[in-house]
């Protein structure tokens, strides 16, 4: 097995693939809902907490659909004090 030089890009790991797509989906939903970047961070934490509570998808590791994300974005905006 060859060791890749530090000057050579390492291949993406399996757990890395698709993450940018998922992040773009959250970004798109947040942007459509008018959530600014600093609250998008909070929204990400809010979605993570909803995920842990089994509020959507197939807990504990299920991902939210875009419709579920939109619904959570609206709930998040309504709840902000």
């Amino acid at each position: 097995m060859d060791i890749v030089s530090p000057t050579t890009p390492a291949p993406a790991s399996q757990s890395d693939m698709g993450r940018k797509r998922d992040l773009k989906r959250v970004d798109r939903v947040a942007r459509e809902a008018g959530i600014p970047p600093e609250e998008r961070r909070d929204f990400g934490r809010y979605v993570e907490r909803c995920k842990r509570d089994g509020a959507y998808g197939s807990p504990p590791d299920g991902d939210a659909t875009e419709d579920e994300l939109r619904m959570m974005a609206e709930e998040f905006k309504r709840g902000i004090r």
Partner: protein
Amino acid sequence: MIFDLTHTVEKSDDLHVLSALMTALLGQPCLKVDLSYGDEFMLHVGSPVAYRHPKLANETKGAWILGTRASSWRLLLTNPPLLIEHAMPDLFSPPMSAYPVRMGNATVKSSEEVEKNARPLSGKIISGVHLIHWPVPAPMDVGIGFSVDFVGEANLVVLPSPEPDEGDDPVADWELFTPYHTYLRVGPGLTWSYVRSDLAAASATPA
């Protein structure tokens, strides 16, 4: 030099200025580590700040938040000694088929377990911040990662993801949110920006 942390920079590739901005973290205490949706690692630094949503009322966030976005991360803790990583690039070629379990005693942790294991980092002072040039596939060829050292020899390393970024509006490799309603958005590649964080994305223009 004097940096006005309320002054925005729309786009730059000056890594000396980026490095200088990152030194704002030096000497500050880690508040906590938590994970956001999409396995984004967030290092909360500085004074605790309340969340504005009631579902998060039992948590606080840091005045400064260093978040990984799509980057890989690795956290080295010393007491107890633990190495926790997510999607770190496999330095062997071809990639190991047994990924992500690489060692006999390696286990896959849930995000809650990661947060629990990282609790000893709370209160640790940041003693060093270093930018890392890291090779990524073309067309970017190189991206910017960083390492954060804590008193007591704990250490965080964040490296830009080699995953191709398709379409417009690329995802940043990592971000640093400040208490001044601004944030650093670094990558992909060697470019970065320092823009308002309290304006919706479509109107996030310089103040």
